């Protein structure tokens, strides 16, 4: 089982034996179900690096489509060293620590404006971060005495968000995007960050944070935001991040590195 040892850098999928490379796959091809379609399914599997591959299930869906389940051994190797991940580069603080940090460092409450922008009406995620109720046993930002939360709710237009941030003198703007069909979340986020760069001078632009279950946390640059949070984010992580990037406290900066 050496393959399971974390000191091994090269790994392969594991079915029931180290190195067997076995994976399961399912997909639909726009072909009527016949031997040719099964051959086409195998061709795809081979192109994906599955060899040997077996079509273990094929079912006609109407006359034009066939659904396949394919099992097989992938020949690719995974090099764990090449994996880049956005590791947490700030210390996790308790609500108490957050509040004192803000008191000491900012000498005024931190203002956070939150919203679901575009046509997205999925507020449960942003509410999990902002509402007192919180998420995963952690209270939301409203619970922090030193954080002032303005939650604009769902389907907020970008201009309204910019305006509200200006009025509220937001230190940070928290935006949620859950609907991803046709990359709606990416389009909306880019539109949002552009509008903020437009509306604020570099040094007075609020910190831009987006989140949602389908974001790639490594895309900050592409999307023009300061931070991206993915699925399972907890309020504490967000609060700690905000402190580390908005509150000039050497002590904390040190911890961060």
């Amino acid at each position, binding site marked *: 089982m050496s393959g399971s040892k974390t000191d091994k850098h090269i790994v392969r999928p594991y079915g029931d034996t180290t190195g067997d490379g076995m994976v399961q796959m399912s997909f*639909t091809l726009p072909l009527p179900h016949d031997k040719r379609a099964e051959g086409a399914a195998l061709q795809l599997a081979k192109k994906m690096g599955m060899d040997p591959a077996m079509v273990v299930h094929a079912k006609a*869906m109407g006359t034009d489509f066939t659904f396949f389940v394919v099992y097989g051994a992938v020949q690719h190797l995974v090099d764990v060293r090449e994996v880049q991940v956005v590791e947490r580069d700030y210390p996790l603080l308790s609500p108490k620590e957050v509040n004192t940090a803000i008191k000491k460092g900012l000498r005024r409450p931190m203002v956070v404006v939150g919203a679901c922008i575009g046509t*997205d009406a999925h*507020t449960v995620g942003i509410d999990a971060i902002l509402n007192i109720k919180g998420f995963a046993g952690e209270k939301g930002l409203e619970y922090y005495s030193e954080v002032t939360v303005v939650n604009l709710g769902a389907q907020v237009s970008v201009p309204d968000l910019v305006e509200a941030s200006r009025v509220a003198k937001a230190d940070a703007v928290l935006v949620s995007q859950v609907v991803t069909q*046709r990359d709606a979340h990416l389009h909306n986020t880019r539109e949002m960050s552009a509008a903020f760069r437009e509306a604020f001078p570099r040094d007075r632009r609020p910190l831009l944070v987006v989140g949602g279950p389908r974001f790639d946390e490594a895309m900050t640059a592409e999307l023009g935001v300061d931070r991206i949070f993915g699925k399972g984010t907890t309020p504490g992580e967000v609060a700690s991040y905000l402190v580390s990037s908005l509150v000039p406290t050497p002590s904390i900066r040190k911890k961060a590195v």
Partner: protein
Amino acid sequence: MSRSPYTTAANDPRRMLDLDPVTIRKARSLARRAGAPVVKLAKQHTTVSVERATLRLAGLEGADVEGIPWVNRLVDVVREQVGLEHGVSVPVWDAMIRTGDDLTTVAQKAAAGSVQFRVPEGKAASAAAKRARVQISAGIRRVDAQRAARDKLIGKYGNPPSPWIYLIVATGDIYEDMPQAQAAAREGADVIAVIRSTGQSLLDYVPEGPTREGYAGTYATQANFRLMRAALDETSKELGRYVRLTNYASGLCMPEIAALAGLERLDMMLNDSMYGILFRDINPVRTFVDQRFSRQVHARAGIIINTGEDNYLTTADAVDAAHTVTVSQLLNEFFAKEAGLQDWQLGLGHAFEIVPEIPDSFRLELAHAMLARALFPDAPLKWMPPTKHMTGDVFRGYLLDGFFNLAGALTGQGILLVGMMTEAVVTPWLSDRDLALQNVRYVFNAAGNLREDFRPAPDGFIAQRARQVLGEAVDLLDDIVDDTLLNAIADGTFGLMTRPADAGRGLEGVVRKSSAYVNPASDLLEEGATR
């Protein structure tokens, strides 16, 4: 539909749950008392959308170059010139009489600023009202004709057995939707719902024409309705089975979409008396006025409504908030019947949304589902699958959907919304629907009759839970009656959403009626008249 088609003497849920008839009666009368003031409010107001719906029934179609529908342009001009408190009909038909133009021409001229509207008095007024009624009644008769056409087809093909299998398509492109809907029907779907593009419910107009560019759904337009209904008529013929079509009314354009649904023979509509308020932050008064008119149209069109209680459980906890679902069902029932809908048209919503990992979660679901079945024996009920607790583990999801299907079978649900294993991942794929239907087929064929062996004891876990929920519902209704429904909504009673009566989208579209208010459409609907 015959009486009580969903239960038999042997499995009468009221008996098994040992529900107290007095409590049930009390719950209904409390719902009536909570709803009555809101109905009064609804009768005192009209909205831009009600007036636009009236014009649509009169046959006004099409849009200007920017795609703004003529009904919007016309209502806006009338409002700005003479206000809407008298309704749009008299001023518009008065203008038509004076100019001799037809409706579309008047609308176009109005948009161009070349018509002067007035609120005529005496003879002129009654003449205008009369002409309006003649033209609008033609639209109402078209709705009647569509209902007759549906009845004819059902008479020919018969109705599918209960529950009806309800499937969603949501590609965003009507031309992808059609073949997918037909494929789903061939695989066994009895009802096809085309999900709306996100955000449409916040548009204060109904887009025009066939559309290919929705987000996570396809725009609800008259053209799309017509295309999809035609595609399904074709498939119904091929299958010898009438395949029903569903879309969404709730939103800023409830009345208009209801009118279009009636004109294009949709068979069901998502129509909730409070969904727009709670989940789309639409002004409460606007919503209550709109939902009443829209439901009168649905009643006339023989359309089955689906209410949205299931949504509460996506924001609130399904166990803690179980009684809010019951309360909302009772309110939806009251508003629906007041608007003329009958029991067989009430697809009251509820859902399988309890955290699957809590002990006895499945039995709790059964308790809640049986309670709904017991309270509304003659309503089909819309049984929604797990969504909130679905994850990327599609295998687990497929299993949960199987138990959801089993709960539907054990409790005699009438409309079964088919759950998708990819709920937490993507909008349904073709193969997701195919697998989902296979799941439904297995469960109902292999275990559907297990209902005969399912006999919760009156003193058992399930019955006790059901009685507890009913008790909490009655208590909550008591508070609502004291506090008024509008305040209860403002206080976040439903789905944890707080919605004050004087805020929310579309408020500006609400107008208090004057004593001279005329709306031939409302009259025809209230009277049940055809001319």
